[in-house]
């Protein structure tokens, strides 16, 4: 439980760092070629970590089901929809709606025990928790809104 929490925080910290780095990348390189580059370098880095820590086991694909190979394309759905949403709504609104949807769908996935997730029963505190996170996010965003209006 604690390890899972810590690793979720690690993932978030690196996404935040990646956002900042990619912001600088996007000053000069944008669109699908930027996405391709970011994902290729991520894949190569994973290969290197795997080689160093697991050795040749990183090439052990025996546990891969056919459908698993296509799961990587979900990321394409993320990028395409995000580009479209940002173009139409602007970044602040797009991200806000996206995050709210993300929380609600993750709760649905947990409650339905989707794919490999252990099925959990929906409790009132879960809904309360998600609502609190959404309110927190709205308050968090108030600051950036004031700033962009200046």
């Amino acid at each position: 439980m604690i390890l899972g929490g810590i690793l979720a925080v690690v993932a978030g910290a690196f996404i935040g760092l990646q956002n900042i780095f990619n912001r600088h990348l996007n000053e000069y390189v944008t669109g699908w070629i930027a996405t391709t580059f970011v994902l290729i370098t991520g894949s190569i880095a994973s290969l290197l970590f795997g080689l160093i820590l697991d050795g040749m086991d990183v090439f052990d694909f025996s546990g891969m089901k056919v459908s698993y190979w296509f799961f990587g394309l979900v990321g394409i759905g993320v990028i395409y929809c995000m580009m479209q949403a940002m173009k139409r709504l602007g970044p602040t609104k797009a991200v806000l709606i996206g995050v709210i949807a993300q929380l609600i769908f993750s709760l649905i996935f947990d409650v339905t025990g989707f794919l490999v997730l252990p099925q959990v029963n929906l409790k009132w505190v879960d809904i309360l928790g998600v609502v609190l996170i959404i309110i927190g996010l709205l308050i968090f965003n108030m600051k950036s809104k004031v700033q962009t209006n200046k």
Partner: protein
Amino acid sequence: MIGILMAILTGFFIALQSVTNAAIGSGVSTWTTAMITQAVGATGALIIYLFSKKSHVNGFKKVKPLYLFGGSFGAIVVASSVIAVTLVGATVAISLTLIAQLGTVVIIEALGVFDVRKQPIAGMQWIGLTLMMIGVVFISL
């Protein structure tokens, strides 16, 4: 309307991605998962790029070399997320990831490092992050 639908779909796909990555991780090792899922994504993005209006590629030379390493963080992001989702479930993992992400950007802005304009952490940001953390505690009960 299409914009809102697209934003909702973005959230759907991000949540879906954390579960599909965890599913791959149940079959192969964590690093293999991160390698495959990003290689497949890159292939898809490259195909779309080849069929779309080309943006200029020579921009890469103008990017400060340090910032070309943003993508490589994806290895740690996917690997950590696979284990986190498997251990604590999608909602808690995604919530904590989101808070850590916002917190990291706020700290980087407060320090003014990585060529980001220095700006102190606003009161609203403290309150927002605190409320979000209380929210995660409720979900993990």
